[in-house]
C-alpha cells in the first residue's frame, strides 16, 4: 500500500476542467431538507469474485487483488469471451436446503447470503413493530437469468415439453427482494429496480430517500446479478465491448469490460434509532441524485453524468472540496471512461486534480445490476478505514482520463465524504454521496 500522492504524477492532460458552478444548496433545498431524517448504514454483506463476505472483499481491495479468472460453466467453449469475475466454489447446499435451492435462482442465493451478513452485523430483529416500518429495495438487471438459460435450453435444445413448476417465481426480477422480505419479516415497501448497470445505485438511492423522508425506519438495499452463464455472456459478446484479457479502467490500452457476479446488501437505518441502540455506524448516506441523458441507448453523455454528480452533492449539502474519493463507474470501455473523466473534471473544476477516483471493477468485474452495491463497500472502506481501493491493471496514461485514478496500489488517505457513480445503458445515471461519521 502506498502513502504517497498520485504516483503517476503530472502528465499529458486533455480533459477540460470547466469553471464548475459552485455547488451550494439553494434556499428551497434547505427548506425542503428541514424535517428530513439522517440515514446511516449499520450493516453490510456481500459475495463476489473477491470473497464470500465483506472482510475478505475489503482485504482484496487493500491488496489490489484481481478476482477475474477463466470462466467455468456449461458451453463456455462456445464463447469468444472466456474471462469473468466468477464466484468459484459456490456451494448453495452449505447455506440452503433442497426446497430452497429449487426455488432460489443464483441471484437470489447471492442476495440472501449478503442480506443475512448485513442483518447479522446490524444486530436487528424485525419481529413486531419494526418489521412493519422496514422494507427492502434491490437492484438487478437480469434477475434469474440462469433459470431462463437452463429452461430455454431444456425446451429448445433438448426438446423437452415440461419445465419445473417454480420457473416463474424463480426467474422473476423481484424474487430476491421478496425472499429477503420473507426471511426477515420486512412488511413495508419492497420492490426491485432494473436500470441496467445503475440498478443498485437507484435502489439504494430510493431506500435512502424512504428512510430520510420517514416512509420507513430501516431499509435493506443493494443488489445482485448472476449473468455469468452461456446466454448471459453470449448476449454481451454481441456488443463487442468486452475485453478478452483484462479490465483496465482509465488505462490508455483498455479494451473493454469484464462481467462479474455476486451481491451486496446494506442496512440503511434512521440515525437516531441506530444511535439510541448503540449500533456500530459504518457511514452516513447523505445524498442521492439521478438523471437521464435522454440521448442514446448505449453511448454515455458527460452532461447527464455531471448532472447526477453535482445533484448528489447538492442533495447532500456538500461542497465539492469535501469530496475526497469517487468510486467510478469505470467500466474499462473506451467510451465510458473518457466520458466519466470529462464529467468529473467539469463537475469539480480544479478540485478534480485533488480527489481520487478508482474503479474496483478492475478487481471484481462489472456486476451489472449488482455493481453499485459491491462498489459501495469501497466507499465505506475509504471513509471508515482511510484506505482507497486501487484501479488495478493500470498500465498506460490516457490524456483523456488524466485524473488520479489510484493506479494499481491502494492508498492510505483520510477522506471526509465520497461519491459512488453508476451510469447505465439507456442513459440512466445514479450517484450516491456518503460521509464519515
Amino acid at each position: 500500500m502506498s502513502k504517497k500522492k498520485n504516483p503517476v504524477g503530472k502528465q499529458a492532460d486533455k480533459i477540460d476542467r470547466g469553471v464548475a458552478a459552485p455547488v451550494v444548496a439553494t434556499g428551497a433545498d434547505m427548506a425542503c431538507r428541514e424535517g428530513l431524517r439522517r440515514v446511516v448504514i449499520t450493516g453490510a454483506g456481500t459475495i463476489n469474485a473477491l470473497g464470500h463476505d465483506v472482510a475478505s472483499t475489503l482485504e482484496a481491495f487493500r491488496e489490489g487483488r484481481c478476482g477475474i479468472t477463466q470462466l467455468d460453466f456449461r458451453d463456455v467453449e462456445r464463447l469468444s469471451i472466456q474471462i469473468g469475475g466468477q464466484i468459484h466454489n459456490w456451494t448453495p447446499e452449505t447455506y440452503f436446503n433442497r426446497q430452497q435451492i429449487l426455488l432460489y435462482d443464483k441471484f437470489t442465493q447471492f442476495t440472501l447470503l449478503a442480506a443475512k451478513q448485513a442483518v447479522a452485523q446490524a444486530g436487528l430483529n424485525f419481529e413486531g413493530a419494526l418489521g412493519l416500518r422496514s422494507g427492502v429495495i434491490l437492484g438487478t438487471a437480469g434477475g434469474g437469468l440462469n433459470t431462463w438459460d437452463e429452461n430455454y435450453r431444456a425446451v429448445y435444445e433438448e426438446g423437452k415439453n415440461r419445465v419445473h413448476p417454480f420457473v416463474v417465481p424463480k426467474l422473476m426480477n423481484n424474487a430476491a427482494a421478496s425472499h429477503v422480505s420473507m426471511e426477515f419479516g420486512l412488511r413495508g415497501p419492497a420492490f426491485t429496480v432494473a436500470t441496467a448497470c445503475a440498478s443498485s445505485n437507484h435502489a439504494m438511492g430510493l431506500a435512502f430517500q424512504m428512510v430520510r423522508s420517514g416512509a420507513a425506519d430501516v431499509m435493506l438495499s443493494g443488489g445482485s446479478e448472476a449473468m455469468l452463464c452461456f446466454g448471459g455472456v453470449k448476449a454481451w459478446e454481441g456488443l463487442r465491448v468486452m475485453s478478452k484479457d483484462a479490465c483496465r479502467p482509465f488505462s490508455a490500452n483498455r479494451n473493454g469490460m469484464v462481467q462479474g457476479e455476486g451481491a451486496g446488501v446494506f442496512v440503511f437505518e434512521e440515525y437516531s434509532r441506530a444511535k439510541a441502540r448503540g449500533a456500530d455506524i459504518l457511514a452516513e448516506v447523505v445524498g442521492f441524485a439521478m438523471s437521464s441523458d435522454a440521448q442514446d441507448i448505449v453511448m454515455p453523455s458527460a452532461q447527464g453524468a455531471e448532472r447526477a454528480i453535482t445533484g448528489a452533492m447538492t442533495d447532500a449539502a456538500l461542497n465539492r472540496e469535501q469530496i475526497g474519493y469517487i468510486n467510478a463507474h469505470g467500466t474499462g470501455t473506451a467510451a465510458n471512461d473518457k466520458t466519466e473523466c470529462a464529467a468529473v473534471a467539469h463537475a469539480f473544476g480544479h478540485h478534480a486534480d485533488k480527489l481520487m477516483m478508482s474503479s474496483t471493477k478492475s478487481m471484481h468485474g462489472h456486476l451489472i445490476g449488482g455493481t453499485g452495491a459491491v462498489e459501495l463497500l469501497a466507499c465505506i472502506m475509504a471513509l471508515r478505514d482511510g484506505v482507497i481501493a486501487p484501479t488495478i491493471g493500470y498500465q498506460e496514461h490516457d490524456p483523456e482520463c488524466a485524473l488520479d485514478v489510484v493506479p494499481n496500489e491502494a492508498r492510505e488517505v483520510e477522506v471526509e465524504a465520497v461519491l459512488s457513480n453508476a451510469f447505465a445503458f439507456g442513459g440512466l445515471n445514479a450517484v450516491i454521496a456518503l460521509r464519515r461519521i
Partner: protein
Amino acid sequence: MTEDIQTRIRAIIAEQAMLEPEQVTDDATPEELGIDSLGLVESIFAIEEEFDVTIPFNANEPEKSEFDISNMGTIIAAVQRLVAEKDG
C-alpha cells in the same frame, strides 16, 4: 466470387448507411458514410451472418483490431481473406 463478395458487402453497408450501393466507394471510410460505432458493430454482424465467418473486432480499439476498417476497400479485402480461409 471476389466480385460477388464485394457486391454483397456494398449492399450491406449501403443498407446500414441508407445510401445507394454505388455510393459506397472503396476509398470511403465508415465515418464518411455516416456509420457510427454502433452502426459499424451492426454492419459487421450482418457481414458475419451473410458469409458465415467470424470477424475479430473490438469496438473499444477498432484501430488495433486484426480486421482493418480504415475504408471500404480494406473491409472488403479483409472479408475476402476470411472467406478464403474458411473455404480453404
